[in-house]
């Protein structure tokens, strides 16, 4: 059934359809409406779950991680400073190999204070052992939350689903809400092999000495590497049941494209229009929307970019002293490639600044009109 709903509401519906058992969260703009709606859904009985209204995000993640270890399907949501406050617990959840699913509504980290969209909050958590899936539409957010539980519970690593603050979290779109029985067929109840129980007592997370710790990490690394296959398979199954799939990255007008614009999240919707306009003028440009950032689909991107002349990376984030995080990852991935494109790096949309068709046009013009990149990322929209 199609309903008009915001990205955040789509997330809440995805959580409800996934039959989550324990939710714990702390409000933060622009995530807040997710947990507000989930509170109502739990209170009016549409969902049978415990909702624990904790006093901080650190506690929210500690709470859902422990509930997950006790065998419950769990969910939390946050943004920006909340995600940063969870940092320690993000490592803990992945280290304990817990299938926690979290939605982060991407928002800038201060200072100065800023509540608007930027992807630097979640990209800064790229080394915490979570899968990261970036969404472009409310529909994709709902579908990805349901998929995330299947993926997490199979590989035993937590999954972070990202929605751009306001541009996606607060924008209403028609969303096809799947039937509960269809979702139940896709997502069976969570039955972990090991859990905290008095019937078979185990100790979780005691000290692993230097001779053993590296082996724990290596197991997690193998799981992370193997997750690409799982993400693809789960997405394929979802598509066969619900008619929608998204892959590791989405391609638009890429078949014979010599220049590729690569970005994540809602900027891709705007970019699609601009790319189409260039195509009308006979320019061989295409769009690649990266959906999965962790694990980084290096092999797949090498294959996809093989023989292309240029790739323009639009980062809605910046690592001070290094540049755009997506661009850094892409350049590292391309290093061993035999026929790699030149990488043009752009920083835009920080602190929620609009990425307009003109911004993207500017990026494409610079990429088309220069034979080589500037050597440093080009910042769009900085006041002179």
């Amino acid at each position, binding site marked *: 059934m199609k309903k008009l709903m915001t990205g955040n509401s789509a997330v809440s519906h995805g959580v409800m359809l996934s039959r989550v058992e324990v939710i714990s969260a702390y409000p933060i703009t622009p995530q807040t409406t997710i947990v507000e709606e989930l509170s109502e859904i739990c209170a009016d009985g549409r969902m049978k779950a415990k909702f624990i209204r904790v006093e901080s995000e650190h506690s929210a993640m*500690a709470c*859902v991680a422990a509930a997950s*270890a*006790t065998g419950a399907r769990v969910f939390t949501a946050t943004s920006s400073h909340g995600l940063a406050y969870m940092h320690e617990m993000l490592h803990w959840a992945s280290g304990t190999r817990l299938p926690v699913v979290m939605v982060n509504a991407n928002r800038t980290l201060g200072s100065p204070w800023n509540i608007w969209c930027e992807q630097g909050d979640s990209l800064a958590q790229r080394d915490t052992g979570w899968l990261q899936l970036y969404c472009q539409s409310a529909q994709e957010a709902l579908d990805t939350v349901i998929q995330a539980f299947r993926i997490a519970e199979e590989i035993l690593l937590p999954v972070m689903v990202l929605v751009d603050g306001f541009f996606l979290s607060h924008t209403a779109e028609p969303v096809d809400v799947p039937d509960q029985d269809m979702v139940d067929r896709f997502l069976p109840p969570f039955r972990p092999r090991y859990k*905290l129980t008095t019937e078979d007592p185990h100790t979780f997370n005691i000290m692993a000495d230097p001779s053993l710790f590296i082996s724990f990490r290596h197991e997690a690394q193998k799981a992370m590497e193997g997750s690409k296959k799982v993400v693809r398979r789960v997405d394929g199954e979802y598509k066969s049941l619900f008619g929608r799939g998204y892959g590791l990255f989405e391609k638009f007008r890429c078949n014979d494209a010599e220049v590729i614009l690569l970005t994540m999240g809602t900027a891709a919707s705007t970019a699609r229009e601009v790319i189409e306009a260039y195509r009308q003028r006979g320019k061989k440009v295409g769009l690649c929307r990266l959906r999965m950032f962790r694990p980084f689909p290096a092999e797949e991107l090498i294959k996809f970019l093989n023989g292309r002349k240029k790739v323009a990376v639009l980062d809605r984030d910046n690592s001070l002293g290094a540049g755009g995080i997506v661009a850094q990852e892409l350049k590292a991935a391309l290093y061993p490639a035999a026929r790699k494109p030149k990488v043009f790096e752009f920083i835009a949309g920080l602190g929620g600044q609009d990425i307009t068709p003109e911004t993207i046009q500017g990026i494409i013009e610079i990429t088309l009109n220069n034979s080589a990149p500037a050597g440093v990322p080009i910042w769009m929209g900085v006041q002179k």
Partner: protein
Amino acid sequence: MNAKELLDEYLGSGHGCCPGCAMPIVMRTAFHALGENTIAVITAGCFGTISGTFPTSPIKLATYNTPFASVGAAASGVRAALDMKGDTKTAVLGVAGDGGTFDIGIQALSAAAERNEDFIYLCYDNEAYMNTGIQRSSATPWGAWTTTTPPSNLKSQPKKDIVEIMVAHRIAYVATASIAYPEDFTRKLKKAKETRGFKFIYAFSPCPVGWRFSSELTIRLARLAVQTKIFPLYEVENGERYILNEEPEGIPVSEYLKPQGRFSFLREGDMERIQENVDREWKRLMSRMERRTL
């Protein structure tokens, strides 16, 4: 307590505690009182850090170790998951030291108490950050030496009154406990297990290494703390009903302070000052007492 009960041990040998440490006695007593239908949530600090190294563990209960600040939140999560499965018979026991309770963990603890989560929170108080090597905490008493309160700059603030902080949450049950009074300790844990809502058990845990006393004196110092009125044994029900469990002999505090090297830098008049403070606190506590159980 019958002989058969003594066999129900849930803390075995193999933990890495220092000789004479009170904490494993606290934990052993607590586990024994609560029994096998218990899930323990532990954290950084002496117990979390030295209670076994993978793949061996001296703890025979289902145990989840969580980062330092998060016992209150993690125990709430375990309780919620059990409740969702309809398991109301398993008790959840959160465990932290004074650092994890008075300081870094107080936010999650206060929040869990305010939500009246149905689990037992056990604090073992050794009055400093002992696991990292004797740094002052807000549980360190006035006048004590630690590595961060050196002789020229001894702790100049009184100990935080964690019991009154927890009582102010109006939770179902708060009790102090001492390893020198094991029957009282066991009774309190069993009472906590039978009580619904949030329970806070506060156990005194002498530390020979950090307090600088000879390791055979652990139980004696635990008893002296009660008998000098420094650590009164009492319970508070529903945030208002105070019950005294042990009428102290009122031994002078100097008897308790003198065997401890951490108090060896006190200046003239300091012992008297500590005595005055203990007497004042005792008077304040007695004014709240509804009845005395002797």
